[in-house]
């Protein structure tokens, strides 16, 4: 559906390119969550895909058709790409009614009057905005505005939807509901979509696949559970929450979620690692122990790990125990 090859973009007057030789492909119907900290270049990548920016090198294909190729001088302007884009604050047209906002992208050349009407009606129905059809954007709540932005982008039947931080202006209580609603709308229309977010909860909740973006590059991409349980490196691991680093001498370091580790009172297998309990903390939902690795085979054995304590377990500070990896996802 979408293929990006070796794409770079370097803004004038900045030391580092915003996007560096990025390769990415998104199959039809997939929802990809592009996650990264602010300034990582994820918004620039969006703008490159939509045609609002021109790549310095590399090429972008939508439906196997080149829309941008820095070498071949191909460049399809944004209005011809059939890409939908939802901005952080919606960027709704303030002087048009809700209905006219949705109908804006439907050209009379392409759609008949009846078609336009039925498309608008259908979208207003799925987004639950029918009752507001003749109101203006400023009369809507934050969540309604965001749903309207999605409806407007969906109207001209784009091949691909891009959503740039669509939830970050919403208050936390509303956020979860809107997230589910928008995901449902995207799924129902079988839309290929990329959602840019800095919030890892959003990414885990909505992405069929997640790509972690850092300093203009994709650090790791995979399914939510792959990304969560098998982070490629410390950056990817810590982005999604606490992780313990296991670094056996001669091996590459490995990052494991605390919940994928278990404390044992005695060694049952050779792979169980001896540790010393440094402290115990009540974290509300469960208790957790901070432990120190006693196995010399680990590069970082002075480093401490955090391991959850099962509710039935008795653990004492200062005693020796064993740790076992219990990966929930293979």
């Amino acid at each position, binding site marked *: 559906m979408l293929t990006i090859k070796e794409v770079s973009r370097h803004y004038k007057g900045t030391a580092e390119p915003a996007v560096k030789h990025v390769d990415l492909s998104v199959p039809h119907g997939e929802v990809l969550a592009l996650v990264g900290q602010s300034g990582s270049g994820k918004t620039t990548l969006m703008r490159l895909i939509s045609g609002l920016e021109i790549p310095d090198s590399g090429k972008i294909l939508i439906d196997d058709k080149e829309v941008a190729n*820095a070498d071949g*001088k191909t460049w399809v302007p*944004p209005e011809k790409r059939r*890409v939908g884009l939802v901005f952080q604050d919606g960027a709704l047209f303030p*002087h048009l009614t809700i209905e006219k906002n949705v109908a804006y992208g439907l050209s009379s050349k392409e759609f008949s009057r009846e078609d336009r009407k039925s498309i608008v009606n259908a979208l207003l129905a799925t987004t639950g905005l029918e009752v507001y059809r003749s109101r203006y954007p400023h009369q809507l709540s934050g969540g309604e505005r965001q749903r309207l932005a999605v409806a407007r982008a969906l109207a001209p039947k784009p091949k691909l939807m891009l959503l740039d931080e669509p939830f970050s202006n919403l208050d936390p209580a509303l956020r979860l509901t809107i997230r589910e609603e928008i995901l449902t709308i995207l799924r129902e229309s079988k839309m290929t979509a990329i959602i840019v977010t800095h919030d890892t909860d959003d990414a885990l909740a909505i992405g069929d696949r997640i790509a972690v973006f850092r300093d203009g590059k994709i650090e790791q991409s995979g399914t939510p559970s792959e990304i969560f349980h098998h982070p490629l490196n410390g950056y990817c691991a810590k982005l999604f929450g606490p992780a313990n680093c296991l670094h056996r001498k001669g091996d590459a370091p490995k990052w494991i979620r605390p919940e994928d580790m278990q404390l044992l009172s005695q060694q049952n297998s050779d792979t169980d690692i001896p540790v010393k309990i440094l402290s115990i903390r009540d974290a509300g939902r469960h208790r957790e122990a901070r432990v120190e690795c006693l196995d010399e085979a680990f590069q970082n054995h002075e480093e401490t790990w955090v391991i959850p304590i099962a509710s039935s377990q008795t653990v004492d500070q200062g005693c020796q125990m064993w740790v076992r990896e219990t990966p929930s996802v293979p």
Partner: protein
Amino acid sequence: MQAIARIRRHFRHEVDGWSVSTVLLGLLIVAPLATVLFGIGSTGPKWEHLTETVLSTYINNTLILVVTVSLLSILFAVVPAWLVSTCEFPGRRMFEWLLVMPLAIPTYVAAFVYFQLTEAAIPLLVDIRMNHGVDAFIRAEVILRYGILSILLAGVLSPYLFLTVRTSFSMQRTALIEASRMLGKSITGTFFKVALPLARPAIVAGLSLIIMEVVNDYGAVNFFGVPTLTEGIFRTWFDLQDRASAVRVAGLTMGAILLVLIFERTQRGKARFSESEAYSSPLTRQRLSPLPALGAIFACLLPLAIGLIFPVYQLSKWAWMTWKNVLKPEFLEQLSRSLLLSILAAFLLTAIALVFAYSVKLHPTKWLRLSNRISTIGYATPGAVIAIGVMVTFGKVDHWMGKAVLSGTLFTIGFAYLVRFIAVAYQPVGAGLARVSDQMDESSRILGKSPLFTLGKIHIPLLKGTLLGAAMLVFIDILKELPLTMILRPADFNTLSTTAFGLAKEGRIHECAVPSLIIVGAGAMGLTILNRYLRRS
């Protein structure tokens, strides 16, 4: 090679119908100004005669007026601006906007009104001649003419300074003013030690506007017999019939104005440090006790009396006497035709300004910004200079085509208005477009719409008020314009300003009150629009 390919690749996306038409139109607009500037090098047959006789008079008169009007304007504008922004006294709010209103009165209209003062002084002059001799008489007469002319020019032009300085005072950080007062300086001491130095860039900006208007003026200096460079351009072109020398005088005038502009720019650059932290709580105004309050009212009333109250009073009196003679069918017919043409020109100009501003929004590049900055330089250029530039340029085109297609047509004068007033429309339209978020454009384009469609469906509806306001301002400026219109108008074409000036020159000074009052009314309306912009931004 790679670098060249890279430049070309980026340039390609910046070159489209919008940017190309912006630059081409810009070049057209600059052509007459460039013609004049390059004309500095050429000499006409009468040049030597000019330098030996009147050129120095033109230059001296211009310099004298620039200096006296600037000094008087500082007196008329800076003190009232300080008073209305930092002190509280009866009538303060009224003065705050009334002190801007003299701008509605064109310099030549003020000249009609004040000319009678020189006539009223004749008995005094006769007395001087009898008792002190001819030399004293001549000296007194000159001082009287120059003095009254300077006072009336300062009276109607000082609001430029009042506006820039008032803005500066109200934007100065409250903390600085308060700190100065906590350190034991009185409000007057604070004015001289803190506020005035901080306001220097604003003073320079306001004064440079005043200087441009003084140099631009034709009607008032002509009426008072104080020939400046602008009048010199007229005389060299029409009386001496020496076109090359007229272009040379115009070129020198424009060069001087450019120097003023450059000086103003360097001053503005320095202003940054003081005004960047402008957002602070508004200053609490000091309530004045009765006696100082009376002084403050007087300081505000003085420029108002000179620049607004006396002229409006006098014009109303004359208009009451003569309106039956003036408002005849042929006058009204001519009036409505010229109004229609001015409105048309105003809308065309605003449309062009919209193209310029939209190009920059689509392609926010340095070269387009520079192009627009150069295209809008006409606001600083005296009308007579532009008129000469347009005549010479169009004359060349006509010569090249073998017949007179452009010269002496409505198109010529319309084009000259474009050169002179495009900035008046560009300023508000550009600011308005810049306020519309770029995401509006991007959303529209991603929804499959071209830039033109976006302009029509998004920007024009959003900026309706701004566009109408801009057209209105241009319309009023065309209505008031005198020197350029005098030179370029086709034989049967009259605007309100040329009608009024013609009547006044014929000695029918009471009758010129009706068209003058209409101009003043329109100007007052324009100021009200401007005031709304200033409030909003």
